[in-house]
């Protein structure tokens, strides 16, 4: 019994070691969104293509959707753009865009050239909606359920892998939830 007591420090050390070892593989850039479980913040922004046409959070509600924060100054957004365009052709869910701290003319030009995956595009010139969404870098993508509640935030560019392994299962699950809700 007395000898076992002598092993306590070793056991403590090993527990600590396991903790710290796990820490080596965590990505410090990956932050949990504080917005998960909360509704889309209230906003009033112009549609990107038509200055003067005001949109609010009510325009984005109703179905499961992706909310994608993008800008022409953001290289990673250019990387994910073709994938988003491809995704929009599959008509799984609407993709709403937030054009974040950008120039309207440049953004429209870019969409004309590269294709436009967005059902609706909001023009968030001074980044107010971005701030309310807790955006800390573009691109960021939010999965929003049919009640307009943010359920997941992915920071970084989306590609086939991330879509297939993380985002799509979640979208499918939420769409099932929406269907059950609609049937009830």
């Amino acid at each position: 019994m007395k000898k076992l007591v002598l092993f306590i420090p070793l056991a403590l050390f090993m527990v600590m070691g396991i903790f710290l070892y796990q820490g080596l593989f965590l990505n410090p850039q990956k932050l949990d969104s504080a917005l998960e479980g909360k509704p889309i913040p209230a906003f009033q922004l112009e549609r990107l293509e038509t200055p003067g046409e005001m949109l609010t959070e009510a325009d984005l509600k109703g179905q499961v959707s992706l909310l994608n924060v993008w800008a022409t100054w953001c290289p990673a957004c250019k990387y994910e753009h073709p994938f988003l365009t491809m995704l929009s052709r599959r008509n799984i869910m609407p993709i709403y865009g937030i054009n974040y701290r950008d120039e309207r003319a440049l953004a429209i030009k870019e969409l004309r050239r590269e294709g436009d995956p967005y059902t609706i595009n909001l023009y968030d010139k001074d980044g107010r909606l971005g701030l309310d969404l807790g955006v800390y870098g573009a691109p960021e993508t939010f999965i929003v359920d049919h009640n307009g509640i943010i359920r997941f935030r992915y920071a970084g560019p989306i590609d086939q892998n991330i879509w297939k392994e993380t985002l799509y299962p979640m979208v499918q699950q939420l769409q099932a939830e929406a269907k059950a809700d609609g049937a009830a």
Partner: protein
Amino acid sequence: MKLVNLSITLFVALLFSLMVQATPVDTYEFKSPSNQKRAISLAHELRCPQCQNQNLVDSNSPVAQDLRLEVYKMVDEGKSDDEIVEFMTSRYGDFVLYKPRLDPKTYVLWIGPFALLIFGFIIGAVLIRRQRHNANSDIEMSAEDQQQLDELLKRNK
């Protein structure tokens, strides 16, 4: 002479153009010096979500600039520190706080060191007491033991 005048004008113009380029945040005018002091010390305690190892004042990332400006504005609007911290954490999570709040998630963080310290004191006390006890018992040797010891020593000779 004309050339000198021209170059001076150009120089002054250049000087002003530099000022125009400065970010709006850094030329922010506070309503009062006390507001400025409070806002800046508050921004020092908030972490930039993008660059992570810098606070809002030190960082030059666009997000930090936005958030800094937001803090400054809210201070000037007369918002309390708690309201401003609440504004930040409801958007960016507890991550932005350099000083974590006391809640069930952070109990280990706050209480852990004191618990370890007390634990250490207890172990130390137990060890010292035991050693003292042993030292005392060393002196006391029964007559029987003494006899046995003498015999053993004799046998060795």
